[in-house]
């Protein structure tokens, strides 16, 4: 990875999130690093339970060290070390610096609050504007996310809106204070297939218009494929492969990425069944395997794989592609014989 002269908007360095549970320590995120510049979109993909949602929340600082949780490593958003800040200072970042779009618009809006209140309270908290100003801005925001009759919608309650409309409201609240970084945590998983595309297009155009950085967390490779600049594949809390989206999807190096891509044709399945194509289950994060975490499920695993944890290293021979990295003892691309068997596109 090249080090840019200007510091990136988001710098995540060796981030670890450990939950202390009755069953032992669960390493949900286990040493993840990446950078993100303004205007860039990074896709974070992996199965459910791969730690990508926890990663998103830890990046934002919603999950932080406490009696039951330990976070190490660092997250810098616009120069602020998120986990070193006091809670009150961290809260001031949430809105103007970084914002989050949640998975389920049915549950992420307060059922007893009007749509408008969600927007105006955020605006008034961070921008300290008057009630009328906040309302004007809220109307404007709803218009920007493509909601017809915005003034009337403001006075409605969430249950009076359709799922797609609600997700638009969620996006509007996230955008209310013009954040520089948007974390979208499975933003389309809970929506109808027809609405999914609209929401993704909306997010894409808003990010482009505002020159925001976006972290798109998803298990849906189809969603990530066309709409991200780079992609980072997660397995059992670790990054197994990263690089520019197109080459990674065109020629995966890690057997796990390959297996994920093999399951794309089954996109018509309901969420969370997509990955049945990979045999076995993700490892128990309280007792992860000693060596490569994917080894027990990997068709290419050899003797050394179960003993030694592979590190993330630059892929040789891909000089034309920036920052392609993989964590595998036996990457797919380096042993040519399997190339004919490769699925996907």
């Amino acid at each position, binding site marked *: 990875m090249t080090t840019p002269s200007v510091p990136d908007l988001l710098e995540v360095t060796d981030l670890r999130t450990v939950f202390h549970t009755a069953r032992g320590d669960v390493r949900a995120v286990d040493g993840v690093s990446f950078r993100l510049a303004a205007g860039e979109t990074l896709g974070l993909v992996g199965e459910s339970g791969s730690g990508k949602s926890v990663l998103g929340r830890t990046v934002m600082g919603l999950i932080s060290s406490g009696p039951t949780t330990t976070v190490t490593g660092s997250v810098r958003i616009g120069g602020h070390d998120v986990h070193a800040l006091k809670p009150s200072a961290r809260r001031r970042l949430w809105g103007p610096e970084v914002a989050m779009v949640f998975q389920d618009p049915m*549950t992420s809006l307060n*059922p007893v609050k009007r749509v408008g209140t969600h927007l105006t309270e*955020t605006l008034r908290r961070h921008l300290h504007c008057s009630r009328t100003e906040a309302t004007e801005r809220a109307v404007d925001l709803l218009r920007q996310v493509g909601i017809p009759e915005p003034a009337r919608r403001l006075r409605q309650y969430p249950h009076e809106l359709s799922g797609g409309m609600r997700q638009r409201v969620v996006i509007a609240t996230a955008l209310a204070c013009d954040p520089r970084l948007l974390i979208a945590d499975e933003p389309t998983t809970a929506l109808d297939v027809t609405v999914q595309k609209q929401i993704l297009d909306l997010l894409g155009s808003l990010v482009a218009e505002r020159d925001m950085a976006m972290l798109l967390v998803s298990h849906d490779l189809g969603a990530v494929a066309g709409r991200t600049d780079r992609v980072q594949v997660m397995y059992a809390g670790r990054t197994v492969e990263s690089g520019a989206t197109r080459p990674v999807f065109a020629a995966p190096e890690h057997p796990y990425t390959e297996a994920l891509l093999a399951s794309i044709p089954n996109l018509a399945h309901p969420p969370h069944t997509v990955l049945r194509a990979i045999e076995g289950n993700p490892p128990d994060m309280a007792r992860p395997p000693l060596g490569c975490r994917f080894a027990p499920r990997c068709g290419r695993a050899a003797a050394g794989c179960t003993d030694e944890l592979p590190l993330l290293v630059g892929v040789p021979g891909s000089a034309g592609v920036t920052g392609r990295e993989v964590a595998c003892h036996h990457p797919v691309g380096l042993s040519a014989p399997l190339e004919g068997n490769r699925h996907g596109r």
Partner: protein
Amino acid sequence: MARRFLLPVLELVAVLFLVSLGVFLLLSLVPGDPAVAVLGEGRTPAEYDALREQLGLNDPLLSRYGDWLGGVLHGDLGTSLVPPQTAVADRIASALPVSLELAVLGLVMALALALPLAMWSAYHQGGRADRAISAITFGLLSMPSFLIGLVLIAVLVNSLGIFPRNEWVRPGDGLGANLSHAFLPALTIALMEAAMFTRILRNDLVTTLHEDFILAARARGMSPLRIMVSDALRPSSFSLVTVLGLSIGRLVGSTVIVEYLFALPGMGKLVIDAANQGNYPVVQGAVLVIAVIYVASNTLIDRTYGLLDPRTRRARA
């Protein structure tokens, strides 16, 4: 539409009618002769008979009920059998404000105690404060209100001498004095209710705090206190409102006991004294008035669901 509104109203009327019938019949079966209760023993049979005639006790039961109910509908609840033989309605009119003040004050104090405790407890779910509050409230729920009252008297009145007892100052004779006399009885009433409210609300708050919209509110940079008050409290208060309805019955009970304990001239004292003297018109009137207030307040509480949950509001419109 008519069915939706008319049926509950008809049921309400039926319930109140049954209550009045029950109260009347029950107390007409009083063993012993009311005439003897009034005049005492050792009078001539003619004297008793004259009084019975005067009280209408010689008429058939059903016509007596009719007369009584007719009177009730005109605000006439009969006359006390025991001197001073004043109108029951007047006795109730002077006793009711005392009880209402105590009950309302108790309820307000209970909520004022329960809301912050429940929020604190839920915020530190599983922590020391939460477990301590849970243990204390469980203990309080196992204390009958007269025990709570006696403990408070032993500690606050006898040991520390902070509060006056056994007196009542009407609000008209000085609001400050009135409140200082009402404080201890009201606190007695409040403690048990507060324990109940705290437990119910805390459990619902814990559930609500795990909702996505709470996480979303945090992600918008809202402060924990603001999230508690503005996001979590309202969706968590449905069970509390249900319990509030049920607790009014208990509240009436503890008000009665507290009035007896502190010798305050409210409905409870009125009804207990009347019960001990066999003064059945007073018991009849007081029970009926209490039942009407009780049913009315429960109906009122049912209506507040709509204010709390916009989803049910739409269903009615």
